[in-house]
């Protein structure tokens, strides 16, 4: 199933939540959605017999200067088609629903996005740092991140 067909279908069901279909000749075509009901949209995509997206391949964060972006790469093992969803949250209150209850694999992906970008996935059962130490300050992959001078008595810069 092509992304534009999925887009039409989603538009029927969710209306305003689905903002636009961005066709990109050099990379994946993606559907841009609003963050508030992302879990419902994803549940719909998983459970609907026409889509059957049973696998979250990738969840990644983006720093878009004023906003933080989250990209979901979905894949259907059964129907062999894929889809890219994009959503954006404001940087000062980066909250959006967690997908752990839709796909279990979102657990670590969301922890990593939280670790690196500080995106707050609401409803995640264990949203703690996964790669950095627990007492690490700041979110390293944000563009305004400054590397610390010192960590536990070790000087960080060369």
């Amino acid at each position, binding site marked *: 199933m092509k992304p534009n067909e999925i887009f039409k279908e989603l538009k029927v069901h969710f209306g305003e939540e689905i903002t636009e279909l961005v066709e990109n000749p050099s990379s994946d075509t993606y559907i841009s959605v609003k963050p508030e009901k992302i879990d419902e949209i994803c549940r719909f995509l998983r459970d609907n017999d026409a889509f059957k997206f049973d696998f979250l391949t990738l969840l990644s964060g983006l720093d878009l200067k004023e906003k933080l972006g989250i990209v979901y790469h979905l894949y259907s093992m059964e129907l062999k088609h894929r889809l890219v969803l994009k959503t954006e949250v404001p940087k000062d209150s980066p909250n959006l629903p967690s997908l752990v209850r839709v796909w279990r694999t979102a657990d670590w992906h969301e922890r990593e996005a939280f670790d690196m970008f500080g995106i707050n996935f609401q409803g995640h059962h264990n949203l703690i740092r996964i790669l950095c130490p627990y007492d690490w300050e700041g979110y390293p992959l944000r563009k305004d991140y400054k590397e610390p001078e010192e*960590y*536990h008595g070790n000087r960080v810069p*060369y």
Partner: protein
Amino acid sequence: MGLLNRLNDPIGLDGIIFGTVEDLLNWGRSKSDWYLQFGLACCAIEFMAVNASHFDMMRYGCIPRSSPRQADFVIISGTVTLKMADRLKRVYEQMAEPKYVIAMGSCANSGGPYWEHGYHVLKGVDRILPVDVYVPGCPPRPEALQEGLILLQKKIRMEEIFRKRKRLAEEDLANQMNYK
């Protein structure tokens, strides 16, 4: 061998006896190096190759130990992140004296490719541990690590146990005299 060499030693008579004992002790320590199994990153793959049949680290008397209490030296094979640095320091503190450290590969030597922009990498393991031998390479060839091992064994062979203690005692005495 040791005794004959020591006869020409300018240190004096006690140099013969202590020097020979020292040679024996150093020989034992240099020929029986047990290393801690501690792999961190891609260098650890090369480190495994050194252990395997083709290069065979046991030729040098190196036996793997998983407990730091029983290990003589640790090979820091790979990128030491700041998160790991605390653990590494602790593992090193658990090791029994005399203990040695080999820094293997660019990352352990100076942070390597991450030296400029790595916010999470310890820029050289010598910031937390006293490194004895630096093995360059990214990662080093198995032979390069073996060369580092030979250098470490040479260093252990050259160590002073009694003479250093004697020298320190003499220096101490001299300092006290000066103080008076």
